[in-house]
């Protein structure tokens, strides 16, 4: 009885509202909502009774006979726990959307309610005829609702949909005729017993019907047009009612199709996923993007149907599709249907984030759990298939991130657009908590995934310390920026937990949370869209590589071979090495400066941690030399780029990538010295890059610009910031007595010890080029002439100054007593198995290898002594010099025209450019641009399938049908 209520209550409501709708709109809407709520309650009761939420409840069944006769003359509905849960989503989606859609276009409530009933009916239907009825009704209602509202474009879309529906109906009826003729039954499950050519024919027909209906590539063309053109509020309702119903009906159908080889489904799906998403890569229309995303989920359904069976299949399909549909509904609800060109124009990317991240399956959202389980299954069947799926998913994430990051609108003032969306978001969040809690693979923070010891504790200290010290400044964003503090904290906590994670899954989840919290933090910048997009894409790519490695190596973070390669690639991407600096530069320069400090100083160390810990040294060994070369060339190239760049934050970004090149070099050497150098430099880099970026944060907060050409002379206004920056610059330039020299010394010792002289030369050259940008940075920002518009500039805020002070204190301590760190670091590194080479000897304050020696303390004392002597001698040897004004310079007797004109900052190293001019300018952006262009061209081929003409789409369906039937025919004896 409850079942009947659950299904037919909306229909009842439809009759009622049909009568009411033109008499009293508000009452009609209220009644619609009441009926939907009642239906929801009923379906919840059913779901509870079936025990759907508990384990194994998905397969419990409840049959509802609506008539005295048997099907097809009556409507028999079979409710399983699985479909009951889906039905909940149908109700929720309808409830969320009805107010927006029907409220705007009156008179649509009866149709909406009927659509809900039809959707439920289709999900629960057990035989072909019933299904046919529901499909027909559903299609007609869809067409009707699409055309609702007086708009020519909607009519076009409706017409296309109608044409496609017509074809689907024909093909479907053909299939039904054959089934009935062969088996004498109309039960859906009857076809699984079919054999021979009829089976092939039916499979072909039904598969075409299914692919068209669920919009799987290459039959997704009409779906793209549909999502692009349709009223976005209707799309919201449609996504989680009819679209979901069709998906789940297809999910049931696909398991019973008498295919000669179910694996073919997976192949079609994987191919469709990669090619279809490739076509979508360049998409800029948000509606169409959602269409592509739908097509991706359709492909996933095909893959699942071809590979997974039983309870896994049920739970996976449920997780994937219900949450994806709900997310899509939420996204569509945020659109403003009055805006024809870009309905999401006024939405800030920030609010779109939750549903979009859910769609792309970023942990901890439910789709992630489905994704990782799917990948695990696929990895066992065929790693190639898994690779294809990951590639396709990555493509999908690219345009989804674009959708999100290109929304730069301010927070929407009109709350009414968002009531429903917030509800959706809340439901998603609830679902997230629920699935994460019930996830089969547990998360654990207490395992022995990473060797406890000094090195791990050092990284722990870096993560925790970096987060804590970057945080104070983040509470107040710079000019035009919003505060990234919350997201920095989330990211930082995830990072801090990283070394403690107990299994690979935990590591991955923390990694992704940290990365995407950081992405959101970056989006708080003054002009965020570009940086956010690139960061998201590269973080996504690194995440997918890590995921692939994780799945392939069965939960261990990595093991030798391909998984190690993937991990190394992920780490390189994360650190911006080997050309991946594109994201660093864009993200750091557009992010709030404190966020950049956190990213560069702290977050990038996660990749070092991954490399140092994920791999046993033996695993890295085969990659060693290549890694070292990548590191060296990156260090050199980025240093050169940094010298020629004239944006404060971009320079720091290049410098950051360049410095991390040394770390990669050290790790690539796989010797004790090399790793000591790498980890020591990691710590150093953590210190001085945090100082530099925090200093930049202070400068930008006070002056409002990061352009070298408009800065200068700030030492007179911000002496403390200058001091800290100076110290860290001297440190990273590697000039003794500050700590940067230590890492260089260790590195060169390691390089010469391994006999890698060419590498040492490149490193040496890179470190000399580092002087170029090091000086330019100090000069262009702090020295030279102070522009009059900066006369009123004050010292940087305490919130960024104090952390810099702390960092500087640590840096100075480390400079004069490096043994404080090395005393513990050297034995810890020496105990890592598989590292060759000699172990440096520490005696007192001196460090020595068989090659050379270095005593930081006595060097420091000597410098201090001589400098102090010179200073005192100057002080006592005569009169004090007179401090003159900034324009009191020997300017050939002239009065300098203005400080700005005397300040020489633009194109500072022009001869460098000139000297390099005969070399072809190698820009990573060109290489990446080439890749993108190639992908675009390839995508164009497939994009050209979607002409926007419904007749073409019909033709596609027919072609696919023919090809499939011929193919399967050829496959069977």
């Amino acid at each position, binding site marked *: 009885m409850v079942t009947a209520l659950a299904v037919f209550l909306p229909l009842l409501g439809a009759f009622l509202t049909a009568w009411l709708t033109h008499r009293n709109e508000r009452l009609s809407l209220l009644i619609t909502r009441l009926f939907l709520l009642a239906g929801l309650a009923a379906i919840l009761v059913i779901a509870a009774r079936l025990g759907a939420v508990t384990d194994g409840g998905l397969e419990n069944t409840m049959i509802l006979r609506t008539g005295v006769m048997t099907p097809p003359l009556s409507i028999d509905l079979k409710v399983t726990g699985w479909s009951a849960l889906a039905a909940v989503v149908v109700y929720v989606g309808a409830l969320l959307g009805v107010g927006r859609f029907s409220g705007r276009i009156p008179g649509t409530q009866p149709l909406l309610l009927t659509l809900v009933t039809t959707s439920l009916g289709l999900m629960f239907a057990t035989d072909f005829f019933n299904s046919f009825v529901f499909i027909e009704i559903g299609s007609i209602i869809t067409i009707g609702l699409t055309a609702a509202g007086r708009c020519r474009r909607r009519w076009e879309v409706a017409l296309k949909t109608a044409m496609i529906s017509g074809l689907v109906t024909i093909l479907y009826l053909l299939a039904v005729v054959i089934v009935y003729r062969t088996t004498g039954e109309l039960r859906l499950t009857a076809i699984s017993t079919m054999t021979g050519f009829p089976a092939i024919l039916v499979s072909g027909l039904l598969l075409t019907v299914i692919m068209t209906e669920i919009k799987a590539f290459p039959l997704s063309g009409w779906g793209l047009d549909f999502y692009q053109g349709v009223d976005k509020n209707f799309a919201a309702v449609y996504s989680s009612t009819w679209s979901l119903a069709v998906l789940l009906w297809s999910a049931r159908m696909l398991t019973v199709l008498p295919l000669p080889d179910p694996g073919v489904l997976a192949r079609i799906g994987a191919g469709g996923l990669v090619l279809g998403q490739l076509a979508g890569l360049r998409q800029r229309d948000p509606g169409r993007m959602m269409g592509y995303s739908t097509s991706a989920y359709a492909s996933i359904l095909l893959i699942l149907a071809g590979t997974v069976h039983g309870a896994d299949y049920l739970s996976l399909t449920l997780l994937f599709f219900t949450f994806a549909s709900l997310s899509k509904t939420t996204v569509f609800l945020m659109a403003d249907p009055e805006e024809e060109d870009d309905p999401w124009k006024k939405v800030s990317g920030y609010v779109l984030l939750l549903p979009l991240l859910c769609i792309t399956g970023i942990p901890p959202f439910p789709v992630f759990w489905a994704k990782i389980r799917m990948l695990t299954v696929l990895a066992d069947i065929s790693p190639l298939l898994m690779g294809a799926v990951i590639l396709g998913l990555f493509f999908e994430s690219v345009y989804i991130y674009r959708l999100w990051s290109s929304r730069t609108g301010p927070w929407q003032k009109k709350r009414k657009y968002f009531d429903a969306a917030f509800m959706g978001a809340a439901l998603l969040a609830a679902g997230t908590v629920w699935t994460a809690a019930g996830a089969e693979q547990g998360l654990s923070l207490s395992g022995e995934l990473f060797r406890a010891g000094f090195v791990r504790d050092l990284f722990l200290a870096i993560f925790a310390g970096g987060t804590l010290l970057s945080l104070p400044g983040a509470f107040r964003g710079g000019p035009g920026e919003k505060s990234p503090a919350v997201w920095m904290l989330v990211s930082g906590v995830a990072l801090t937990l990283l070394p403690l994670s107990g299994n690979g899954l935990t590591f991955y989840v923390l990694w992704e949370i940290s990365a995407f919290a950081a992405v959101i933090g970056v989006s708080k910048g003054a002009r965020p869209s570009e940086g956010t997009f690139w960061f998201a894409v590269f973080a996504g790519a690194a995440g997918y590589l890590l995921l692939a490695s994780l799945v392939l190596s069965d939960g261990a973070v990595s093991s030798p071979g391909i998984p190690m390669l993937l991990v190394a690639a992920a780490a390189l991407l994360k650190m911006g090495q080997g050309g991946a600096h594109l994201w660093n530069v864009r993200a750091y320069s557009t992010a709030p400066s404190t966020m950049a400090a956190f990213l560069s100083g702290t977050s990038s160390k996660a990749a070092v941690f991954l490399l140092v810990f994920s791999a046993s040294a033996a695993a890295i060994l085969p990659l060693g030399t290549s890694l070292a070369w990548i590191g060296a060339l990156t260090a050199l190239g980025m240093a050169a780029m940094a010298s020629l760049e004239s944006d404060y934050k971009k320079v720091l970004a290049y410098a950051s990538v360049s410095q991390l090149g040394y770390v990669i070099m050290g790790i690539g050497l796989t010797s004790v010295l090399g790793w000591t150098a790498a980890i020591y430099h990691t710590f150093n880099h953590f210190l001085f890059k945090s100082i530099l970026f925090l200093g930049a944060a202070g400068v930008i907060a006070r002056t409002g610009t990061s352009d070298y050409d408009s800065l200068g002379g700030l030492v007179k206004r911000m002496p403390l910031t200058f001091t800290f920056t100076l110290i860290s610059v001297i440190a990273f330039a590697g000039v003794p007595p500050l700590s940067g020299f230590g890492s260089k010394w260790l590195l060169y010792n390691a390089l010469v010890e391994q006999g890698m002289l060419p590498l040492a030369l490149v490193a040496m050259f890179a470190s000399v080029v580092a002087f170029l940008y090091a000086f330019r940075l100090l000069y262009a920002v702090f020295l030279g002439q102070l522009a*009059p518009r900066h006369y009123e500039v004050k010292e940087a805020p305490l919130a960024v100054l104090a952390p810099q002070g702390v960092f500087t204190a640590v840096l100075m301590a480390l400079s004069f007593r490096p043994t404080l760190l090395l005393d513990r670091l050297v034995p810890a590194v020496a105990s890592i198995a598989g590292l060759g080479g000699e172990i440096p000897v520490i005696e007192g304050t001196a460090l020595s290898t068989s090659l050379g020696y270095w005593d930081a303390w006595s060097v420091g004392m000597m410098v201090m002594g001589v400098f102090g002597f010179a200073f005192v001698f100057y002080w006592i040897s005569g009169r004090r010099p*007179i*401090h*003159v*004004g*900034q*324009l*009191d310079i*020997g300017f*050939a*007797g*002239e*009065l300098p025209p203005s*400080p700005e004109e005397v300040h020489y900052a633009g194109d500072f190293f022009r001869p460098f450019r000139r000297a390099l001019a005969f070399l072809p300018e190698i820009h990573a952006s060109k290489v990446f641009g080439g890749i993108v262009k190639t992908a675009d061209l390839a995508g164009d081929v497939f994009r050209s399938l979607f002409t926007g003409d419904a007749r073409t789409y019909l033709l596609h369906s027919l072609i696919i049908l023919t090809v499939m039937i011929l193919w399967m025919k050829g496959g069977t004896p």
Partner: protein
Amino acid sequence: MYCNKIPDKPVDNEKIWKKLDDLARANSLWITAYGTGCGAIELRPLHTSRFDMERFGIAMRPTPRQSDVLIISGYLSVKTLKRVIRVYEQIQDPKYILALGSCTIDGGMYFDSYNTINILDRYIPVDVYVNGCMPRPEAVIDGFILLMKKIKEGKAVGWKRYKENLEYYRKNQREIIRNWDLPDYNW
């Protein structure tokens, strides 16, 4: 943007090294390489092997900050005078001025020009005048030797005079430089 300090009056309080200082100053005269008038062309031969001024320790410095001697080489227009004042004041003490040619003494052949000063002494303190139009390099060297002699005897105190009588010089300078926009003292 400019330092607005007025220089202190010079004081002689160091007697111990004075002799040595004067000797060193006399034998290490660095010139500001700044051609103020036509006579600058006559300075070039001083570098050459024929005249070789380096044997007296005289060298050209391209910046007033590092030099000791400013050579006013010939006629001085009002416009140039302004630059000369700035350059002269930017030279660190002790500093000397060597004036070449008749124009610097009494206006020379430009005595009736609307734009050329007649008597240099009124605007900046000259230590040695070298007569001639233009003086030959030998004459210039002779002037240098005279300057060295004066320095050794402690008589080349134009810079002290200038600082002591800054108001007088300023008054004269401002009288003829109409768009006076120099700071109080050109540090």
